[in-house]
């Protein structure tokens, strides 16, 4: 219990640190904007629940809460009262680009997300547990945190700039996806959306375009970094890549060879020595054993003497006769 209190006190002290405090203010402000934005949408729940999730995450350091907050924001955008009590009207996508309420909500959510993650790095855990390495590292200790002294003044403005940039990028992506329709009858297979948006199955083309776009981005990004990695390989990595490729090509043949080699090796080995238990020798002669040995010796000697005496007598008396 005292550990928990200690942790809590440390956490609060860290939150109130001069450099960390700016992030706390940003998170709180972003949550407030999310709350107001929900209220503008006409529902108290739409503002309250995401903001509450965010504040709980801030207070209790639950890493899952930012995602809950984002999910709740999206949920209450689709269902302002949380349950499908009525079907909201469909909006023409032409009127959904760069809307003030969307800009406000998305900007606040992004600022909250970025700031909250950075706050986690300062107060909860900066890098994940390295499970396999931890086996060897007995002194793993508490989770590693980012040093508050490393927080620079320019970080908050940078954060806001990044949020604004990705916000604009998101709006443009939505603009492209909502106004472009795939049409495989023409080349290139794209055209602008025409006519009534209800008549065209634009969302199918939006999904395909999104999938293709994300796939291309990931593919070319991966390719570029893979080539970069190949270029920057160290000697051991390059040697390993060559050896591994060679092994994959010759694996079956080599396995067969090695199996038979081991078989031959085992046949050639000498049989393991048979360990026979030796009878323990008494450290001191046992009296009875000594008496017994003496009696036995006497008996054998007497027997031999008798045989010799009897035999000799028989021969001698025979000769005499």
């Amino acid at each position: 219990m005292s550990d928990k209190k200690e942790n809590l006190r440390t956490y609060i002290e860290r939150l109130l640190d001069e450099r960390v405090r700016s992030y706390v203010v940003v998170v709180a402000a972003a949550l407030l904007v999310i709350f107001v934005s929900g209220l503008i949408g006409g529902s108290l729940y739409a503002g309250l629940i995401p903001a509450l999730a965010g504040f709980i995450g801030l207070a209790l350091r639950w890493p899952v809460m930012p995602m809950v907050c984002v999910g709740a924001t999206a949920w209450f955008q689709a269902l302002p009262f949380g349950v499908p009590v009525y079907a909201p009207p469909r909006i023409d996508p032409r009127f959904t680009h760069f809307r003030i309420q969307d800009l406000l909500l998305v900007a606040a959510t992004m600022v909250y997300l970025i700031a909250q993650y950075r706050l986690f790095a300062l107060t909860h855990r900066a890098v994940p547990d390295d499970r396999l390495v931890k086996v060897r590292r007995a002194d793993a200790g508490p989770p590693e945190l980012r040093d508050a002294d490393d927080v620079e003044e320019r970080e908050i403005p940078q954060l806001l700039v990044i949020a604004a940039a990705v916000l604009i990028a998101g709006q443009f992506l939505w603009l492209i996806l909502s106004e472009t329709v795939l049409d495989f009858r023409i080349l290139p297979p794209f055209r602008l959306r025409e006519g009534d948006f209800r008549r065209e199955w634009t969302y199918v083309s939006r999904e395909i375009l999104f999938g293709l776009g994300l796939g291309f981005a990931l593919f070319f990004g991966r390719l570029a970094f893979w080539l970069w990695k190949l270029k920057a390989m160290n000697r051991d990595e390059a040697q390993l890549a060559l050896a591994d490729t060679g092994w994959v090509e010759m694996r079956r043949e080599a396995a067969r060879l090695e199996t038979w080699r081991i078989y031959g090796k085992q046949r050639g080995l000498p049989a393991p020595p048979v360990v026979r238990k030796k009878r323990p020798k008494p450290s001191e002669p046992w009296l009875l054993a000594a008496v017994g040995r003496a009696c036995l010796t006497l008996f054998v000697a007497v027997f031999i003497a008798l045989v010799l005496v009897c035999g000799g007598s028989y021969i001698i008396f025979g000769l005499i006769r």
Partner: protein
Amino acid sequence: MLTSRGWWTIAVGVVMCLLGLTSLGDIAPAIPILGLTIVAWFLFELTLFAARFRRTLPNIEVSREVLQAGRSVATAWAKSACTIRVTVTNQGPWNWPLVFLRDRVPEGRKVRGGDPKLACELRPGEPVVIEYELRSNSAGLFRFEGVEIRVSDLGGLFYRRVFLRAPLDILILPPLTDDEGKQRADKRFNSLPPPGLHRLRRPGGGSELLDLRDYRPGDPPKMIAWKASARKDKLITKEYESDVPVRTMLFLDQSESVRIGPAGETPIGMLAETASGIAQAAAATRDLVGLTRFDEEKSDVLTPARTKVHTIRLLGKLAEAAAKMPNPGPREVEELQDAAYPLAQEMYPELFDSETNSRPWGMYWLPLMDTRWGWIFAAPVFIWMALIYFQFFWVVNFTFNVVRIVRPRTGNIWLDVPLFFLTVWMVFFLPFTVFLLVWFFHGIRGFFPGRARRLRRRKQLAAIFVALDRDSPGRIERYLKDDDALAERIGRFLADHHVRIPPKLYDREGRYRYRCESKAIVLANAIVSSVARARDNELYVILADLADLGDSIAPLMKAVRAARSRHHHVMVIVPWPVDVPPPEAAKANGRPVAEPAWRGNQPGRFIHLALTRGYQQRFEKLRNELARIGAVCVRAQVDDPIRLVLDRIDRIRGMRARR
């Protein structure tokens, strides 16, 4: 590369995009916009992190300094703290915003002060310094492997771990025991005695005046101090110092038996410390000290000398001996793998990348035909096929006859017909079915978790060893199949990185594995060659674990007898195990002390008592045998061997003076 936080973020972003891009987006356009924004932000952060990582990694430089008494040193002294200073510099153009550095502390050593870990930002051109303190209680080695760097972005979405290898070995010399060792200054110490004090307190035929004494009949007239005689009105004779030094030869055991134990607390460390004390004390009185190191196979000699450079060289040799690692011996490959895998993972993280160190699925499959008994199931298939080819109608006839007998009968036509055909199939293809079932169940066992995990780890280690050795790819398969080859390579890997694994002291037959009988012969040869090279009466100090040799000590006894016959003195210093009480401790007034009764339910205590008693008896026997031929046997930790050796040197010097 992605942390769980990163995975959750991208998963939520993509799900929101996929849901929002459906007709839901027409109702609530904020959802796809938010999803697309999260995905765009994530991709931006990912690209930035990956680019920073790739661009900066080759430009990170690590340098290390070991400081003792404020000076950078190449070798450190035992029993005094040394500061390790590691400087990490980013020479690249980009920064790493969040970095966790950890210097890998030498295996088995504890940090006495400071912290080998540091969380910081690595800015271009700005070095970051880690400082901490280490202290070794005995001679040995500090093995520094390098610095672990964990890089993350500020939000903790991405993460990479690298290990910058910069291996460095620092010898820990035995502590200086003279005045120079106690000083704490850069100024060189004046080790000459003050006027009136003499190092060599024995009179002899030297040139330095030692003392004045009354004349005794028989003293040469040239030794009379005429001025002092006139002043005292009686004859006074001058005495000069004896400048004939005593040569001491140290024989240090560095066999496997003395290397066992935790780092810094091995018997060889204690022996080296004793040897160092003797060498320094003897050198302080200008006696010559030499060193012979021996193990089970060979010996090397450092000829006796008395200069300071020689003493330092001798200490270096002692430290090298103390740093030697025990051979873990034949071990189960699983045990070695369990020790080596985390070490490799810690030090070679980039070589575990699945792109370069692949684990194909086929690797886990266990081929039936690679076994010797697989043909038992394959042969019937071939025989059956031959029968089908040559005697098809007989086979068909046989099949239907068997089916007629064994087919199940239910009375229901809808069941009987399919069961009939199933039975025909089973009988006609029985050898094939059996073979397929055995092949499948034999092969699939390779994918079971325990076996698959072991094989995966083994493959990864094998590939890393091949890469480090610049070996051929076929070697990987050899390590996968050959336990002996892999065990040998893992043992070498652990020894290279100075990782100690608990040795197995007894073999399967219950014999002590570290007796090292052959070292008696090597030591005997070394003593005989020293006797052959000797110029005067010398002192041979044998620092060795001889108690366990038993009857194998005969060659050594012979050599000691030869040395004694040439009037050399021999002393044997045996390391005494910490947990074994000395024999005299078990006796009170010459009588054995009654030990607490052993009960049948304490096998561990019984074994401990038996081993203790056995060791004490063996030591007593060794001491008696040595005493019989005129050699002295003392214990390293219990007796005061350095004082005994110095007394013996003085005795030798006195004997010479008297002669």
